[in-house]
Structures are given as C-alpha cells and as structure tokens.
C-alpha cells in the first residue's frame, strides 16, 4: 500500500524506529533480568512472532500502533497453530518453526517488492 492519503506522521518512518527502540529496550531489560536466556527468549519472540507480522499488517494500511498490537495478539495463537499443523507432517518442531519463519519472511519480501494490493 503506498503512502497516498496518509498524514505526515504515518508517512514518517520514525514510528518504525520507535518500534526498533522499544525492541532494543525490551531486549536490554530482558538481559538485565535474565541474562542470555532472557535475550534469546525475547529475541526469538520479536523475530519469530512480531517483526514479520508487524510489517505484513503495516503493508495493509494499519498504523504503527495497530500493526504492533495486532501482531502481538494474532501471532500468539495463529503462528504456533501453523507450526503445529506442519509438525503433523514434519516430525520436528524446530524444522517446522524454521519453515514457518521462512514463509513469513518470504511473505514480507514478496509483499513489499511486488506491491500486490
């Protein structure tokens, strides 16, 4: 979706930087509280769940706040469900999750490169 019809604040990429800053702050807090495990767990959550879906939702015209909050809630149930379905065929959770992640990233790239909608 292009930037036509959006106001200046929506056009600004600052909100994505703000999200990046938030992610960094969350990672720092998790390292402070739980060390490397905190970093890996929160890093996994951000990379696997949040970032790809945030960009997918943003592509469809939702603002930064909506994209972030929707990405948190939609992925909490939908992504593990997809991993679960795939795991019925591929007998490894790790491989199933990696495949789903690759599909997510491919979807983001495909959407932003080809401007489907």
């Amino acid at each position, binding site marked *: 979706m292009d930037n036509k019809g959006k106001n200046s*604040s929506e056009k600004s990429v600052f909100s994505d930087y703000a999200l990046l800053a938030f992610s960094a702050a969350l990672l720092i807090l998790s390292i402070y509280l739980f060390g490397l495990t905190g970093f890996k767990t929160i890093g996994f959550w951000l990379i696997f769940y949040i970032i790809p879906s945030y960009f997918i939702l943003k592509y469809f015209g939702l603002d930064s706040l909506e994209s972030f909050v929707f990405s948190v809630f939609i992925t909490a149930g939908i992504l593990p469900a997809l991993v679960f379905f795939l795991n019925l065929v591929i007998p490894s*959770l790790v491989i199933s999750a990696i495949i789903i992640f690759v599909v997510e990233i491919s979807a983001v790239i495909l959407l932003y490169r080809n401007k489907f909608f």
Partner: protein
Amino acid sequence: MAKLKLSIKNYEIIIVAVLFLTSFWLWTLPLQSSNVPFGEGDAAWQFAAADQMYMQNHASFRIPSYLGNWYYGFNTILGPNAIEYPPPYPLNIALSQIFGGDRFVSAYIMFALLDMLASISLFLLIRKLYGILQGFLAGFAMVFSMRDIMLYLLGQRGSVISFTFIPIALYSFYMYITTPDSDKKKNVYLFTTILVIASQYVFHIQGTIVSVGVIILFSLFMWLKNKKFPLTINSLKNNWKLYSILVLLLLIFTMPFLLIYFGAQVTNPVHINNVSRLFSWYKVSDQPGYTQGNVAGYPLIYFSFSQIYNYWYLPFLIMGIILLLIRREPKDLLMLSWVIGVYILIHLDVTGYFSVQRSARMLLAETALFYSLITIGIAGLPSLLSNFYKIKESSIKTIKYLLAAIFIIFLVFANGKAAYSTLNGAYSPILRLNPYQMQVSDWMASNLPENAIVIAKGTITYPKIRFMLAISQRYVTNQAQNLLDLDVITQNDIYYMLDYSDLVLLGQQDTINSQLEWEKLNFQNSTLIYNQNNIHIWHGNITVFTNGQ
C-alpha cells in the same frame, strides 16, 4: 535519514513501550527471585503440557500417559491421554524453551509475557475510541490488575491470556463496522477480527465466548441505531469470495481443536436457581465456602471490589456508564454491549448451565471493562459538569488532568503497591521444588520406566508433587487408587516416595519421626531404590496407594 518528528503516533508507541516494559518487569518478579517453576496444580499441568512437546521436539493431540493419568478420561470424546488445551497454546511455551535455551526460565518468560498483555490491548481500544489520556489510564491500570495477577500466579494462565484478547477483538470489529465501505482498510479489519478471535480461541474458549457475545450485542445495537443490519444480502453477494476465505480461515484454526473443548464440556441441565443473584453484579455471600473465605476455588479477594479496584473508583465507574448512556455514539454502544455481555455471562450460573466456578472465571472480562469505564468517567466528568455549572474550557482541561493525576497516584500507591508485594513475595523457596526434589525428579526421569506411578508422601504441597511430575516426566501423585480401580495400571507400576526434604528444611522433627515410623512399618517387603538427601523411593510389594494427605 527521515526527519525525527515526535508526533502523536510516536507518543502512542512510547506509551505502549512504557506499559509493556513495566508489565514485563512486574509480572516476571516471581521468576526474578528464583528460576524454579511456581504456581498451583494448573500451573504444573500447563507447564508439563508444553514441556513434553519441548522434550520430544514434537506436538500432538495426544499426551504421554504420565500427563494423561492426571485427569484420566477427562475428554469423553477423544478418550484417555488427549490434550486438554488446543496444542498451539503450550506450543508457544515449548518454542520459547527450544529457541530461548532454558527449560524453566524461557518457559516462564513466555507465560508472563502472554499473561500481561491486557494493558496494551486495552490501551489500543480506549486510546482509539476515547483518546490518549483515557487509553493510557486504562492500560496502566491493567498492569496492576490483581484479579489477572492472582490467576496468573495460581496457574490458570490459558484463561488469563484468552481474556486479554477481548479489547483487541472488540476494537477490530468496531473498526470494521465503523469504517466506510469505500475504505480498503474495512476488509483488513474484518480479517484481523477473524484472526484475533481464532488466535484467542486456542488459549481458552471462555474468552472467545465473551468476545463473540459482545460483538453480537454490538451488531444488534448498531442495527437498532442505524435501522440497518451491518451485514446485508447484497454485501454477501458482492463479497462472497472474501467471506468464503474468512469462513475457511476460521474453520482451519478452530475446527481441529473443537473436540478438545466439547469432549471435556460438563453441561448441567438448565435449572433456574437463586434468581436474586440477578439483582447484584456478582454476589458470593450466598455461596458455599463463603464463610471459610473461598468460593468455587477462588479466595474472596477475587470478588472484592475494594481489593481488586478501590472504592474511590466507584463514582467514576458509575459516571462512565452514565456518559455512555447519555451519548450513545457507536463507541459508547460498544462499551455498553461489553457491560451487558459481561453481566449476562457472569450470571449464567443462575440458569444452571454454568457452574459458579465457570461464571466466576468470566469476571476476568470485568477488570478491563471496569477500568475502561472508570477512565471514561474520569475524563468525561469535567465536561459533564460544565453542562450544569459555568466552567471555563481551560479549567475543564485542568480538572481532567488533575483527576487523571490523582487516579495515577492511587493506582501506583494502592493497586501498584499491592501488585508488587503480591508478585514479589509469590511462592517463597519452600513453596517451590527444593534442590533435592529437583535432583530426585531428574533421577526418576533417567531411572524409572515411562509408565512408573510414584506416590509421594511428605512433600508439603500438592503443586510441588505435580511439578515433580512435570520435571521427572513420570506420574508423581498423591494417590493411585483410582487408576488401579480402572485397571489402567498394575501394582508393579507403583513406586512410593518418602520425601523428608521439605520437613528437614522446615525443622519439623516430630513429623519426620512419625513418618519414619510409618515408613518402617509399611515397606518391610519392598526394595529401597533411591536414598539421597532425605528422600527415599521404594518399589515392589507396595500395599499403600495413597499418601493420606
């Protein structure tokens, strides 16, 4: 680089960050003090359900017998050893264990993260409908919501997570209804509504019932207001492809898990009882257990307005409802639908269809609602007063922010303080597995057969017995008589664990002595197969099938 301009959109992200980081710090306090799992029986079950996926690197509708024995035959359709929650919920935890790298800490970080989300979903709903101040106040209040915190600590985590979805589901549907047909985003909101509800459904069906119920009520209100039903035959005809995709999506994510819910459904015959409860918001004084301080498994604080909120908030809550009734704009109708929806659902026990235990859990939908109403009341009161008294525009703003500041002070020093002390003091070391119990759990995992049944005596709490089950991946229990009666196990599968480790730590010498005497008497013909750190495990010729606790 783009010009960095601090617009209102950026403030939103900053507020979300503040809410998120505060919640994360606060809700992980029990994990910061110790990395040993905590909670009651439900917590152990939900951890074990995820942990077995992590250990096997595989998720399925079936669960190992050590877990299936716990509620043997619970699902009447799927039969024994069927998982009790849709697998995607525990799979979240298992994935965090796999990629986070720690069996306990990663799992508990993910539990905390998913349970604390009500503040950001409520912020989005109230911010977009009523403004940034109201959104912040409502979201901030949810950080300290004692009812959610209690159930999170006790372990009914799937329910807590499911109820955090309600505001976002309502927001998404509201945006779909109110966005003009010509706007492309209208259909995006329809997709997000379906996906949010499908996502909510995998955590617990009760939250989904609230979301769908309120959405139906809101659609009816909008129908009455606009004298036009939100969905027309024409729009169905014109958009049939879109609607087909949505129905398909909903079916894909809900149907596979339907029997998990319906096989376990305990339906009571419809039987009207205690109608007087309809005339109060949620009366518990007439319930069994009230005088002992516990109703349907919940401590009385769970039902107490003054302890969950604060009596000072009550006038603002009433003011909030009055404002909604006066204005009756679409956003107000959504909130009123929420009020009515929650009222209906928390009174379903009057029809006999729900048990009090189930209807009490519906109160989880009340906290976000009440805090929304309170903040609407706080922000709307000065404007309402200006209709009766001459108040300058600038003074209205000042009063509004003053009230908001007072509310924040109350939140921090009353609700926040209580939340902090509850979370910080939750599950002291003696109420979690001690190092010797962790060690024996690991030993059982390596040395006992998978179908071993271990009766534990001496461990001071039931949840600790169940956490040993989770960690050892063996059925550790307080009794095995029911499984013997059902012919699910044989006497030879049974092991008996005499656990003195808690009693030694507590210095309860008299109890230790009497248990040692009891042990001598009852295991003369059995073989001692584990004897370390004041924990004994016996096998062979076991004749006692309960721990007597």
